[in-house]
C-alpha cells in the first residue's frame, strides 16, 4: 500500500489534485480536492438582487451561461415572473449552444488526447488516435473551428461568450428578426454537418434513434466517425467497466418551453424515477475546509473558509440528497428522462467511463435537433421580455441542467439586498469529498477500484476516469 498525490491535473477546468492509496494492481482509496478557495458567494452579499446576473456567470469561463440562466431563474422565482415564450426559446438556444460547445471541447480537447499519449504507442489503433494529439491533432483543429462557428449563435443572441447579460428573470433583452432566424439556422446546420461528418459519420437522427444496447452495438460496427472510434477504444481498453460507480442519478430538469422540460426533473434510484425532493438537499462540511454547522441546508449555507480544520481535505462541500451521494451529468439526465438506450446501458454498466462519455456525445445529437426546433418556433413579432419587481424580502431556489449536470442557486433577500446566496454546482456533487458518515463522493467511489497496469507510476486509468466526469473545478469551489 502506498500513497500519492496527483496534480496539477491538466485538461480539466480549474485546479484539481487527487490523493490516491494503491496496491501494485489497483487504487484502493481516493480523495479529491480543488486546492483553492474562491468565495464567489460572498461577492453577492449586500448587493441588489439583479447584480447576481453579472456576478454568477463570472464564477466560470466555460459554463458561464448555465450560471446566468440559474441566476435569472432564481430571480424570476423570487419576483414571480415567467418569461414570454420567445424569451424561453432564446435562453434555451444560448444554453444549448454553450452545452454543445462544452461537450465538443471536452471530447476533442480534454478527454481524447489521453489516447494519443506514448503510453498507448504499441496499440494497433494508436496511429488513428494521433488525430486527437493535444494541441496538434487534426481532429482537434477541426473541432475548434466548428466550435467557433457554432459560437456565432452567441454573437447573434448573447452578444458574446462567455459572460452575457441578455438573459433576465423576465426573458431576454435581445429580440430577433426573421432574417436572424435564418442566420441561426445556417450556423446550426454547419454544426450539424460537423457532427454528421466527423463525430458520428451518420445523421444525427440515426443517433437519437438508437433505442437499445443492441442498436448501439450494431451501429458501432458500421461507423467510421470519432464517436465510433471512441467505442472501439472502449472495447479494447475495457472502458465499459472502468470507473464504475453507482449512486442515485439526479436531474434538475432542463430547457423549459411553456412549462414543459425537454429533459425531465427527477431522481432515478433502484430502477424508478421519483420527484426531486429539493428540501432534502444538504451540504456536509465534515471534510471541507469550511466553517459553520456540520450539515447545512443551502438556504442556511455558510461560506466561511477554515483552513486548519481537522480531517478537512477539500475546499468543496459534500452535497447530499437525503443523506446520499448523487451523480449528475448527461448520463443522469437521460436515464432520469427515460431514454431507453441509457436506461438499458445503465442497467448493464451503471455509470462508467463509457456511459458517461457516450451520454454526452448522444446529447450533442439530441440538442442539435432540439435547437433546430426552438429556432423555428421563435415568433419575431412576439414579446421576448417582461419587466419584474422583487419583493423586499424573500427566498427562492432554481435549477439548471448545465453541461456537467444539475446546478442549483439558492437566494435569500432581506431589505432589498442579497442576504445569502448559495450555489451547488454539478461537479460539487460529482467530486464531493467524504461526508460525516465517511461516504465517498461519486468520483472518489469510481476511482476506488481503478486498475493499475504493470509498473505504472502514474496510472492512466485515473486520467480516463477523472476526465470522463468532465469536471469543472472552477464552479465546484466557486
Amino acid at each position, binding site marked *: 500500500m502506498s500513497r500519492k498525490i496527483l496534480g496539477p491535473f491538466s485538461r480539466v477546468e480549474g485546479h484539481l489534485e487527487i490523493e490516491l492509496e494503491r496496491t501494485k494492481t489497483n487504487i484502493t482509496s481516493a480523495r479529491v480536492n480543488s486546492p483553492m478557495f474562491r468565495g*464567489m458567494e460572498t461577492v453577492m452579499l449586500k448587493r441588489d438582487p439583479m447584480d447576481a446576473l453579472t456576478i454568477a456567470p463570472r464564477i466560470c469561463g*466555460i459554463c458561464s451561461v448555465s450560471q446566468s440562466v440559474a441566476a435569472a431563474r432564481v430571480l424570476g422565482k423570487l419576483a414571480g415572473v415567467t418569461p414570454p415564450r420567445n424569451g424561453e426559446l432564446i435562453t434555451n438556444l444560448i444554453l444549448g449552444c454553450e452545452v454543445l460547445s462544452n461537450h465538443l471541447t471536452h471530447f476533442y480537447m480534454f478527454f481524447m488526447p489521453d489516447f494519443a499519449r506514448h503510453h498507448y504507442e504499441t496499440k494497433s489503433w494508436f496511429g488513428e488516435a494521433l488525430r486527437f494529439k493535444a494541441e496538434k491533432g487534426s481532429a482537434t483543429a477541426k473541432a475548434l473551428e466548428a466550435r467557433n462557428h457554432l459560437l456565432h449563435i452567441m454573437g447573434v443572441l448573447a452578444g458574446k461568450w462567455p459572460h452575457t447579460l441578455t438573459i433576465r428573470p423576465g426573458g431576454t433583452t435581445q429580440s430577433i428578426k426573421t432574417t436572424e432566424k435564418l442566420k441561426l439556422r445556417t450556423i446550426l446546420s454547419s454544426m450539424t454537418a460537423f457532427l454528421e461528418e466527423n463525430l458520428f459519420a451518420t445523421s444525427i437522427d440515426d443517433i437519437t434513434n438508437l433505442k437499445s444496447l443492441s442498436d448501439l452495438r450494431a451501429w458501432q460496427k458500421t461507423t467510421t466517425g470519432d464517436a465510433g472510434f471512441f467505442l472501439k477504444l472502449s472495447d479494447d481498453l475495457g472502458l465499459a467497466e472502468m470507473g464504475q460507480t453507482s449512486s442515485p442519478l439526479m436531474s434538475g430538469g432542463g430547457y423549459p418551453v411553456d412549462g414543459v422540460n425537454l429533459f425531465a426533473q427527477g431522481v432515478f434510484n433502484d430502477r424508478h424515477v421519483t420527484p426531486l425532493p429539493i428540501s432534502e438537499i444538504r451540504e456536509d462540511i465534515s471534510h471541507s475546509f469550511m466553517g459553520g454547522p456540520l450539515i447545512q441546508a443551502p438556504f442556511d449555507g455558510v461560506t466561511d473558509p477554515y483552513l486548519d480544520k481537522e480531517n478537512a481535505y477539500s475546499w468543496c462541500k459534500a452535497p447530499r440528497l437525503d443523506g446520499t451521494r448523487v451523480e449528475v451529468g448527461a448520463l443522469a439526465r437521460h436515464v432520469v428522462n427515460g431514454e431507453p438506450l441509457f436506461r438499458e446501458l445503465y442497467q448493464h454498466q451503471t455509470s462508467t467511463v463509457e456511459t458517461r462519455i457516450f451520454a454526452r456525445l448522444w446529447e450533442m445529437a439530441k440538442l442539435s435537433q432540439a435547437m433546430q426546433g426552438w429556432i423555428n418556433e421563435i415568433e419575431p413579432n412576439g414579446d421576448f421580455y417582461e419587466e419584474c419587481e422583487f419583493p423586499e424580502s424573500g427566498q427562492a431556489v432554481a435549477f439548471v441542467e448545465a453541461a456537467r449536470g444539475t446546478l442549483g442557486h439558492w437566494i435569500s433577500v432581506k431589505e432589498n439586498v442579497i442576504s445569502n446566496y448559495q450555489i451547488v454546482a454539478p461537479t460539487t456533487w460529482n467530486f464531493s469529498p467524504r461526508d460525516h458518515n465517511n461516504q465517498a463522493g461519486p468520483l472518489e467511489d469510481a476511482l476506488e477500484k481503478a486498475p493499475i497496469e504493470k509498473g505504472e507510476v502514474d496510472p492512466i486509468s485515473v486520467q480516463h476516469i477523472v476526465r470522463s466526469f468532465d469536471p469543472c473545478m472552477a464552479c465546484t469551489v466557486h
Partner: protein
Amino acid sequence: MSLLGYEGGNALDALNAAGVNFLWHPTISETSGQDVIMILEDILSGNLELDFLIVEGTPLLGPNGTGRFQMMGGSDKPMIHWLIELAAHARYSVAVGSCATFGGIPLAGDTRLEGTGLQFLSDQMGGLLGAQYKSKAGFPVINIPGCAPHPDWIIETLSCLSEDSLTLEDFDPEGRPLAYFGHLAHHGCPRNEYYEFKASAAKASDQGCLMENLGCKGTQALGDCNIRPWNGNGSCLQGSFSCIACTMPGFEDTGAPFLQTAKIAGIPVGLPSDMPKAWFVALAALSKSATPVRVRENAHASKVVHQPTRKKATH
C-alpha cells in the same frame, strides 16, 4: 475559453504560426501531474527558457499573506510563490483578464482572500509583483483586461511580443496595449443615434441608449469592443445589454447596481470620458430638445416602430 474563440483559423494554429508553443497550459496541454512540476522546476533552475508567463485569475495572498487559499496542485506550494519565482525568469509577463490584471471580481468578496492583480491592485500599481517589477525584456507586466478579454487581444499581443515588435510606447501606463485600449467601448456602439439625442431606454428591452438609466459605461470604458466583433458579429451592445466596464479596474464594485445608472440630482455620476459636466448637461438638454420623434419612439420600443423617412433621389 475566450481565447479558443479566435477566428483567424483556430487559436492553436494561430499561436503555432506565430512561433508560440506552450511549455504548459492547464486546459490544453497533454502534460499533467509531476511532469508539469518538473517543467516549472526546470524554468526556475535556468534549464528551460520561459518567453511568456501568462497568468489568468486573481492571485490570492490570503489568508494573512500566506497564499494558502490557492495552492498549485501537486506541489504543496502556494500559487503566489510560483508566480513570483517564475516572473523573475520570464521574458514577458502577461496578465490576461481583469482578475489577473487588476484583481477583478474577487476583490468585492471576502476580504480574507486578499486578492490582487499581478502588478496592480485595482488602479494602484504594485500588486503581487510590485511596482518595480520588470520582465527580462524590460517590460512591466503586460495587461490584457476584460471579463472576458477578446481573443484577438490575447493572440495578437502574444504574436507581436513573440517577434519583439512592440515597444513600451505601444502600451498605456496601466500596461494595456494601445492598439485595443486606445478606444472606448462606445466607439462603434450600435445605439449611437440614441446616444447622440439622449433618447434613453427606460426598460431593459428598449432600443434606446442605456447610459442614462440602465448602467451603461461604454463611454467611459477602454476597449475596442464594439468595433471588433465577438463570436461572429456580437458585442455586449449588439446583445442588447449595457457595458459594465469590465476592462476597467474597480468595475467589480462601483457602489451602485451593475444595471442601474448611479445619479446625483438626476445627472449620471459617471460622465463620458473627457467631457466636463457642464458641457454634458448643456449638450444633453439641447439634444433631448432636438430628438426626432422617430428616435424618441424607437428608443422606448424593443423593435423599430418608426422608420426613417425615405428621401427621393435628387436630380
